């Protein structure tokens, strides 16, 4: 059944959607799986599993080099996935899409390649709520090239401190802003258009880490006006092993290659090599062919549901969680940002997040607990760890109620 895009998900839609995820009928410790860890990695619908399996069964070969039918079909499938991703992000051409392993690799590519064009005296500006993936590559660049790494603070509500952001840009030394489009811990959706405009006014380029954001909202890089955008397939109901870097064509053209090898060259002699045009210049070696096709299928699947419906559904779920979770004795919601996606972090007085996660797991409920690869943010929040419930398109309000009820029982078990 095709669902015509509309602005909300009915109960029937949701039940139809859930039926497409085989894993959701699994039991964990004898209980129905309540999967509230989609921000770490989302589950996969049948269409994605089938597309990948079908390709491996019927249409698989290496791409870009074979002169035979199978290779040509596989190349077509891989390159149509690129086209599909380009349309999905609103890229001005398909050549602006570089496939990587994940968002982390996409950011590392920019840090290495664009970063090699930076000079001491220039700065990269990140925020206090970055995932380690958008922090460590810039520290490595700082140590390699001698640039300055600046950190824009957040407010106590978990929003980016825009005044401080402006101040950090004001001396014109920032060459690149690299900032999350949605925090994986606080759920904060950053005001991307404003961040882009302020960065550009200060003469800086801007990279948005869209790993969380693309799952929850329609992203159009042209409308955002950004220079780089990254995301990963596995959070978008696609497979692992495939991520995306979008960048403006002129930036990609000016940037040196990241990895060297086959497919990224134009010609090679022992003395020197010349580079293939983008995006091949950045895709050395055999890429994740089947995974790219899986991602293309996942995008089709998501767009068939429609971001209006997905956004409305997740907003309802988040509002519901923010209503019922605070009624759990001792529970504290971490962060109250102005605009947020379907991610809710919390702590509970007298119960450590890891004990929460283990006991929830025994009751069939999967959440994440720990520092969520954002240690500096934890320090800023004066926490060592939180528990985090995150929602996907298949999450139901009833599951959030089960979470709240189980948390209440866990709390009374410990206190």
């Amino acid at each position, binding site marked *: 059944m095709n669902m015509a895009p509309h602005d909300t998900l009915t109960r029937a839609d949701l039940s139809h959607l859930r039926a497409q995820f085989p894993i959701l009928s699994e039991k964990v410790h004898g*209980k129905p799986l309540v999967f509230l860890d989609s921000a770490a990695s989302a589950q996969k619908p049948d269409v994605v599993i089938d597309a990948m399996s079908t390709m491996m069964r019927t249409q698989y070969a290496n791409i870009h080099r074979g002169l035979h039918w199978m290779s040509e079909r596989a190349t077509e499938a891989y390159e149509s996935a690129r086209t599909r991703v380009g349309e999905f992000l609103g890229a001005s051409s398909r050549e602006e899409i570089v496939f990587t392993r994940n968002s982390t690799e996409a950011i590392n590519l920019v840090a290495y390649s664009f970063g090699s064009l930076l000079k001491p005296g220039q700065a990269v500006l990140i925020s206090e709520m970055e995932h380690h993936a958008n922090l460590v590559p810039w520290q490595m660049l700082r140590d390699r090239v001698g640039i300055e790494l600046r950190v824009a603070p957040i407010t106590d509500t978990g929003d980016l401190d825009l005044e401080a952001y402006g101040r950090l840009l004001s001396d014109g030394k920032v060459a690149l802003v690299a900032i999350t489009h949605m925090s994986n811990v606080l759920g904060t959706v950053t005001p991307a258009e404003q961040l882009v405009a302020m960065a550009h006014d200060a003469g800086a380029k801007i990279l948005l880490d869209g790993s969380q954001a693309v799952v929850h909202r329609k992203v159009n890089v042209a409308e955002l006006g950004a220079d780089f955008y990254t995301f990963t397939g596995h959070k978008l109901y696609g497979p692992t092993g495939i991520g995306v870097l979008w960048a403006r064509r002129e930036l990609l053209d000016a940037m040196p290659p990241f990895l060297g090898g086959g497919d990224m060259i134009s010609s090679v002699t022992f003395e020197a090599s010349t580079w293939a045009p983008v995006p091949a210049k950045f895709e050395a070696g055999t890429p994740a062919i089947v995974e790219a096709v899986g991602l293309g299928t996942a995008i089709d699947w998501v767009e068939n549901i429609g971001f209006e419906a997905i956004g409305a559904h997740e907003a309802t779920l988040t509002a519901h969680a923010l209503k019922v979770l605070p009624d759990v004795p001792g529970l504290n919601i971490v962060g109250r940002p102005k605009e947020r996606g379907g991610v809710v972090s919390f702590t509970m007085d007298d*119960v*450590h997040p890891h*004990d929460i996660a283990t006991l929830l797991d*025994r009751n069939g409920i999967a959440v994440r607990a*720990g*520092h969520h690869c954002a240690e500096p943010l934890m320090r800023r929040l004066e926490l060592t760890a939180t528990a985090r419930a995150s929602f996907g398109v298949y999450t139901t309000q009833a599951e959030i109620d089960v979470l709240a009820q189980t948390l209440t029982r866990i709390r009374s078990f*410990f206190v």
Partner: protein
Amino acid sequence: MLNVVDLYGEQIVQRARKPLFAGVTEKATGTAQGSNPMCGDRVKLSLRATDACIAEIRHQTRGCAICMASADLMAQTVVGQSPAKALELAARFSNMLENGSTEEEAHESAVLPPALEVFLPLKSHRSRVRCATLPWTALGEALTQ
């Protein structure tokens, strides 16, 4: 009804709630800090020992129930023992949880003092083993300074 894990026995919950060996040892001869970067658990140990005997041991633990209870039951187990015996116990405890000798084997060879048997269910919770071994790692450091 809450499906409670075998792991969270009364002893563990009690010790996590009200540790008996929390604090700082006066005139300590050895101190160490263990931390688990994955979850932020941290154990600060201080002890006073001669070659023959650990006279006093205290811990300041910030962490989950397993880590807290493990630090406390460890202190209870090794106080009065020789440092050599405590180190041997530390090795056995970690080895049992990490390399997983079976529960039966553990009982048969009486490898562990009864107070530590509450941690045996950890063998089926691999992701939490480090919570229990962290205090023992710190103990090794405090005794070998």
